């Protein structure tokens, strides 16, 4: 016990004290905060209203278009608030003027004005253009897809209204016909209705799963490298004259795992501080459920996932002699993790499917998939229990098998072992 503790302590301190660890731990939340906060801040600095000229001799169409363009940004904003986490960029206000003179000299004149920046752009709505429904928008920066989308929908509305007017339907009636329909998704949870949305249902679980995914690979590889380093520097021989291979392996896994856990705790804490006001706001204003229960399970699934994968990574590190060899042999370990990310979307969409069930109890995929499921919808308790029982059994079995590979592998230098050789190591008690 004492030896395992000493090995773990050394491994933990050696990791936590490095400049890389400190930087990564601090910079990650800073980076996340920047990603969340900066775009909003940057978009805030409005450049004033956009000035767009509508060139058209058809006054009816031009008037509707002007109205649509000038009210579009406000409508978009309303929609945004209904869908938090969607677009949070702000569209500048649009000011439109109508130029009834559809001549070539107007074209030239306006082109010059766009060039000089007096006008942001102009729409060419000749009768022919209206007829063919093909309108040219000339601007310095034609890549603004937000603006393009606004113009497109405004044009469609204007054309439709003028068509309807021809059929004798007035503008009031027309706008009622064209009013947008909104769908509200309501999640039924233990008899309580709450408003769900795309963000909490799909984006959040997926993001968190990706976080487990990255951390598992980062720390699994760290264990592999640590084992490989001890093997190549031959430190292992000195250590084995004091401790047993099992103590060494256990201490190593716990030390690296504790370092990873520390990092996740710091990230989670800073994430909670940054994210809680946002989450609370969503909850109180829009009655959106953030899955706090599932979030609490995050560290649990991390620990299980780490133990499963790092044990395999440790065996891998003991088998090989160099980083290059390790890279080549990594894929059998990586496969199940990558498999998880591929199928996670299907699981999010249908968390009660056969696929989701089996993936969420199979120990190599359950740390990720069961976590995703708990985010979307808490599975029945017996499934959770089954998942944990299988995980514990698998970790025990893997420690036994990988421990044997580790014990022999760390003392084998030179040629990479073949599969039959490894099987012999496992059989050798």
């Amino acid at each position, binding site marked *: 016990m004492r*030896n395992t503790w*000493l*090995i773990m302590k*050394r491994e933990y301190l*050696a990791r936590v004290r490095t400049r890389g660890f400190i930087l990564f731990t601090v910079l990650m939340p800073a980076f996340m905060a920047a990603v969340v906060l900066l775009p909003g801040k940057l978009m805030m600095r409005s450049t004033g209203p956009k000035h767009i000229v509508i060139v058209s001799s058809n006054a009816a169409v031009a008037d509707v278009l002007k109205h649509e363009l000038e009210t579009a940004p406000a409508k978009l904003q309303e929609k945004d608030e209904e869908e938090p986490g969607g677009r949070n960029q702000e569209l500048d206000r649009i000011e439109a003027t109508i130029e009834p003179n559809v001549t070539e000299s107007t074209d030239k004149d306006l082109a010059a004005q766009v060039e000089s920046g007096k006008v942001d752009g102009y729409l060419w709505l000749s009768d022919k253009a209206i007829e063919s429904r093909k309108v040219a928008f000339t601007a310095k920066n034609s890549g603004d897809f937000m603006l393009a989308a606004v113009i497109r929908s405004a044009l469609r509305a204007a054309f439709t209204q003028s068509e309807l007017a021809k059929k004798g339907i007035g503008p009031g009636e027309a706008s009622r016909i064209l009013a947008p329909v909104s769908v509200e998704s309501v999640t039924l949870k233990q008899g309580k209705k709450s408003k769900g949305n795309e963000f909490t249902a799909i984006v959040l679980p997926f993001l968190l799963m990706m976080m487990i995914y990255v951390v598992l690979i980062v720390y699994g590889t760290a264990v592999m490298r640590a084992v490989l380093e*001890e093997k190549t*520097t*031959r*430190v*292992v*021989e*000195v*250590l*084995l*004259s*004091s*401790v*047993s291979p099992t103590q060494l392996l256990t201490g190593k896994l716990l030390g690296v795992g504790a370092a990873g856990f520390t990092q996740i705790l710091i990230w989670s804490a800073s994430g909670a501080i940054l994210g809680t006001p946002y989450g609370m706001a969503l909850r109180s204003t829009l009655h959106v459920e953030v899955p706090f229960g599932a979030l609490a399970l995050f560290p649990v699934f991390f620990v299980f996932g780490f133990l499963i994968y790092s044990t395999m990574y440790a065996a891998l590190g003991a088998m090989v002699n160099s980083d290059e060899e390790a890279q080549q042999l990594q894929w059998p370990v990586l496969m199940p993790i990558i498999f998880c990310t591929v199928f996670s979307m299907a699981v999010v969409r249908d968390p009660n499917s056969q696929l989701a069930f089996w993936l969420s109890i199979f120990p190599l995929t359950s740390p990720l998939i069961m976590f995703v499921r708990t985010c979307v919808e808490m599975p029945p308790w017996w499934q959770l229990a089954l998942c944990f029982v299988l995980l514990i059994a698998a970790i025990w079995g893997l420690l036994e098998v990988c421990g044997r590979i580790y014990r022999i592998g760390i*003392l084998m230098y030179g040629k990479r072992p073949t599969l039959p*050789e490894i099987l012999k190591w496992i059989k050798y008690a």
Partner: protein
Amino acid sequence: MAILELKQVCKSYETHLAVDNLSFAIEQGSVFGLLGPNGAGKTSSIRMMIGITVPDTGEVDMFGAPFHRGMLQMVGYLPEERGLYKKMKVLEMLVFLAQLKGLDSTTATKRATEWMQRLDLGDWLKNKIEELSKGMQQKVQFIAAVLHDPEFLILDEPFSGLDPSSSLALKDALLELKKQGKTILFSTHRMDTVERLCDTICLINHGRNVLSGDLKEIKASYGRSAVQLEYEGEMPFLSDRSLVQSYNNFGNYVELKPAPGRDPQELLNIALKTARVMRFEVVEPSLEEIFIDIVDPAKAVNHA
């Protein structure tokens, strides 16, 4: 009492037999030399003594009882393949290894500092291992092996890579440990380096014990049968099997063993015909000669 006893120990790896029915005992307070060429099975034997690997058959007794891991706290080990954590500070490394041997950190720090000063490394305690030269690292590794004051010390090629003054410091430290009654096992393929240090030896080749016992007795049993010659010129008669059984030629110095029934004086006469002889002496054979003689009597070693 025997500090360590191997009883008919065998160990085989994938394709070859590394240790073949090896038996020997190391008496308390003695300096024991485990000798043999590269690949003879020295390191494999040592690994089994300290439980890094387990013998296929046979037994290892330590301190008069079957080996168990608890005994390791009384054993110090300097492996042939040196290894320390490169990024760790010297003092931290030493304290860590001593703690694994059961010392508390205060005692470990105190002893490590003393040993470091003794081996001229006093200024390097706070440096990282990777900043030390190879020779210094080796001294640090030696300190790690003796820090917990072990009763039984196993040193695998302790002098390789050390400069003469470091070797001397190490030898002095070892002699002092011997005076304190510690038991030391030396493993090396450089037989000349341990000839003056060891009381008892075991020569192994291909995993087998080919010669073991008290070093003085072994040498005495061979008698004054070896000839040392310093010369200038040619010595064509060396390869004549009817005159010379085996020889070890260094160019202007040769050690040889006359063929059975040949008088050394006769060889001197023949040598004088083709070379100027500066020195001629009949001596006890060196360990290396004895080894060559036993392992491969027909083999001649020509360094020239």
